[in-house]
């Protein structure tokens, strides 16, 4: 669409191919605009998902019915899960920051297939709309949980089909983004940027893209099978039709476990960018971090069975999956050690993005360490399907990926908008987040160890104490998130102008304008140094 009149020196926001401002966004093939389109869609869904979470927590503040009926509650946790998993954290970091920054960080003008990139966003929107239709069509919103376990998903009278079709469509968006990034990274790195001179965020996007490409089709097929079974009574999973419900669980987790790494790896990449910049120091163990990234992506395929220890697998399968699960913990541990070692003898500039990165380390450590409880057979059989599991994956997904997302947002905000945000409010938001988060999710570990099952609308008196604390935590958490988001939104509009390189970063994105021009670079840079080579 490059018209001759485009001025390559102005910011990409100024580039107008259409008269209508909306068309300028939704038909743009500029990777930066597409990244922002994803950001705005994801943030909108996030607000909905977070409020649903709050509503559930308020319901649980006391035993018995508090603010909603059991059916509403069941629909709420299903919708919360579908939004948070399929619409937010799976696309999440790659779609937003990957799109905006990957080309710039490897010294390219755009991704390899800009039109395909726009198509991915459109498919994402289509999938989201179809999934949302399930909320308004038929006999009420789905109440199966985001896992759609058979045969409940066949028995329920709620509207499951659109949600499944929506998830199926969203899968294609994920696959196309993955494909685009793989080709971009292979083909479009700037001259001199060898694989081992590539920054770590692109590296994690690369590993993630392969999982997206290889694992997503499995869930696609599974969802198709469920859809076929629902529409044409072909008995794959429903024992009433001669199917096997456990087969569904295997297929579901063969995708959904690797998907956990789709969610967390890019966040690890963000942390690997933020820490060196704010330490003004090269990252400790660059190659070890890359190796552990690839190892996680690979071993992650073989551990799905740890979601199914109580589903009647053989004893051999139990210990084998347990052993593999423990092994996959090692590469994550290696990363933590390398990040902390990077702090050692750095010259640390304690700014907001580093707060979030340190918050990530702390919360992710709790998430990872409690994962060990779930990897071990004896303890997992005890806490499986209790609120312990819910707490664990919120520490990993929200404390890990979510916190990583906010680290990324605060780190690259000046680049994306050319503005700076208010530091005081950002700090208030951060501390509220950590306090609310711990108060919300820590009691859920003890509740699980007391035996409180998950997906519980109501509970016995012995679980009351922990739930009260947890609900108040949720209120603090939501208030803090509101502060964080409002601060960023108002700063994007009215913030002070930010310098080109506010944090003294040395990766390529800090050498281009803030906000970048349409083609990012006037001349494609030639890379000679490693990405974190701070030696002056």
């Amino acid at each position, binding site marked *: 669409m490059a018209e001759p009149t485009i001025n390559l020196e102005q910011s990409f926001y100024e580039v107008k191919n259409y008269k209508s401002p909306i068309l300028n966004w939704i038909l743009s093939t500029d990777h930066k605009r597409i990244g922002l389109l994803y950001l705005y869609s994801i943030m909108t869904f996030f607000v909905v998902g977070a409020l649903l979470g709050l509503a559930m927590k308020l319901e649980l503040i006391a035993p018995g019915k508090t603010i909603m009926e*059991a*059916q509403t509650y*069941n629909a709420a946790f299903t919708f919360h899960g579908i939004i948070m998993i399929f619409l937010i954290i799976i696309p999440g970091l790659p779609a937003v920051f990957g799109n905006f920054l990957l080309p710039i960080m490897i010294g390219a003008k755009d991704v390899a297939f800009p039109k395909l990139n726009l198509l991915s966003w459109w498919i994402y929107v289509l999938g989201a709309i179809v999934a949302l239709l399930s909320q308004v069509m038929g006999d009420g919103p789905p109440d199966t*949980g985001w896992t759609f376990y058979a*045969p*409940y998903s066949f*028995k*329920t*009278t709620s509207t499951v089909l659109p949600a499944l079709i929506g998830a199926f469509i969203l899968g294609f968006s994920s696959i196309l983004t993955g494909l685009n990034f793989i080709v971009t990274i292979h083909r479009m790195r700037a001259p001199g940027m060898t694989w081992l001179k590539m920054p770590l965020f692109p590296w994690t996007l690369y590993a993630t893209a392969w999982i997206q490409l290889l694992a997503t089709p499995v869930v696609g097929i599974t969802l198709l099978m469920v859809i076929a079974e629902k529409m044409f009574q072909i008995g794959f999973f429903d*024992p009433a039709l001669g*199917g096997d*419900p*456990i087969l569904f669980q295997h297929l579901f987790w063969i995708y959904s476990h690797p998907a956990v790494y789709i969610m967390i790896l890019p966040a690890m990449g963000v942390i690997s960018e933020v820490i060196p910049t704010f*330490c*003004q*120091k*090269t990252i*400790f*163990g660059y*190659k*070890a971090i890359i190796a552990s990234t690839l190892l996680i992506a690979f071993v992650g395929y073989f551990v799905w069975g740890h979601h199914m220890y109580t589903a*009647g697998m053989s*004893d051999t399968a*139990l*210990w084998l999956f*347990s052993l593999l699960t*423990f*092994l996959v*913990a*090692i590469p994550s*541990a*290696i990363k933590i050690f390398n990040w902390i*070692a990077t*702090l*050692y*003898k750095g*010259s*640390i500039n*304690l700014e907001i993005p580093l707060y979030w990165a340190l918050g990530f*380390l702390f919360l992710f*450590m709790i998430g990872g360490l*409690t994962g*060990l*409880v779930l*990897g*071990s057979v*004896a*303890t*997992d*059989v005890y806490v499986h*399907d*209790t609120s312990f599991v819910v707490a664990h994956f919120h520490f990993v997904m929200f404390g890990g990926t979510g916190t990583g997302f906010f680290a990324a947002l605060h780190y690259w905000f000046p680049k994306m908008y050319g503005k700076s945000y208010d530091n005081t409010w950002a700090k208030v938001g951060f501390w509220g987040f950590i306090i609310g988060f711990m108060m919300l999710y820590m009691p859920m570990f003890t509740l699980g*160890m007391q*035996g409180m*099952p*998950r*997906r519980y609308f*109501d*509970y016995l008196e012995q679980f009351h104490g922990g739930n009260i604390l947890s609900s108040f935590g949720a209120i603090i958490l939501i208030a803090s998130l509101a502060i964080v988001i409002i601060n960023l939104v108002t700063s994007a509009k009215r913030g002070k102008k930010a310098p080109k390189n506010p944090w003294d970063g040395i990766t390529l994105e800090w050498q281009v304008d803030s906000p970048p021009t349409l083609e990012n670079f006037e001349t494609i840079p030639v890379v000679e140094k490693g990405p974190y080579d*701070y030696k002056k």
Partner: protein
Amino acid sequence: MINRELIDASNLVAGVDKAFWVILTISFIFLIGLTITMLYFVYKYNKKRNPKATQIEGSIKLEIIWTTIPLALVLLMFYYGWQGYTPVTGDPPDDAMEVTAVARMWSFQFQYENGKKTDTLYLPKDKPVKINMKSLDVIHGLFIPAFRVKSDMVPGRDDMFRWFIPHLEGKFDLFCTEYCGLSHSYMYTSAVVMPEDKFNEWYKDTTKVVIPAGGKPGQAGLGVMKRIGCIACHSSDGSRLIGPSFKGLYNQPKVVIIGKEEKEITADDEYIKRSIFEPNAEIVKGFNKGLMLSYKDQLTDEEIELIIEYLKTL
């Protein structure tokens, strides 16, 4: 886990709690140690105190150390985790008592070898028990926290079981842990462990329903329905649950759907019997097929009589 009893409630408790202890202790040490190190570095090497960073690319020696030590530790955790589970792997001892747990939306029933059926799990103390896991509709889970026992109950799979030895007398919570729809959180009952002689006394007494003497007419019928779980889906006060309310049902006209045709019938004794034994033959208009399962072989004629007596009072 939290209230550690003096006697282990089952033969699983010691191993499971040990695995918890090993994993959580190591985890706490790491969490606290790493967090303090991190905060200390952030303080010590703040740019005010350390204006110039020392560039350190990495260290093979350190990478090896912090790969092998965690590796050894996770293998240790793996070992205790597996050990904690082995008391109940494989087949149960020959003298184990068998109980079949049957789950449906949203109640449990326990069937004993002599034909006794209950909604509470009664067990003799210190005797191995093998629980066969059955489900009639969707996946449920049987979870007795005090015993550290949990198993999914999968429809269509008749080979699943869990065995253990209860060691502590008393009444313990028993929950459904696999999400199974509307009343999942109300699907719980208890496991009662009794000394062997008392258990045997209870076990031999196979008189079917204990009809409470006196009381309002039909109360016995309500008792039956509570025990077998009808009230999870049917109310007595007119409110709509999964199934139609029983209020104003008896001997009143009713529109049902047979196949694809609508038909008006009267809810007489025969209709109610059919509704209980073949619930999916005639579907009440406005409700869904396949949710209520047949209670054939689960209710005696006397019990049906009692239920009808109760319905008459509504």
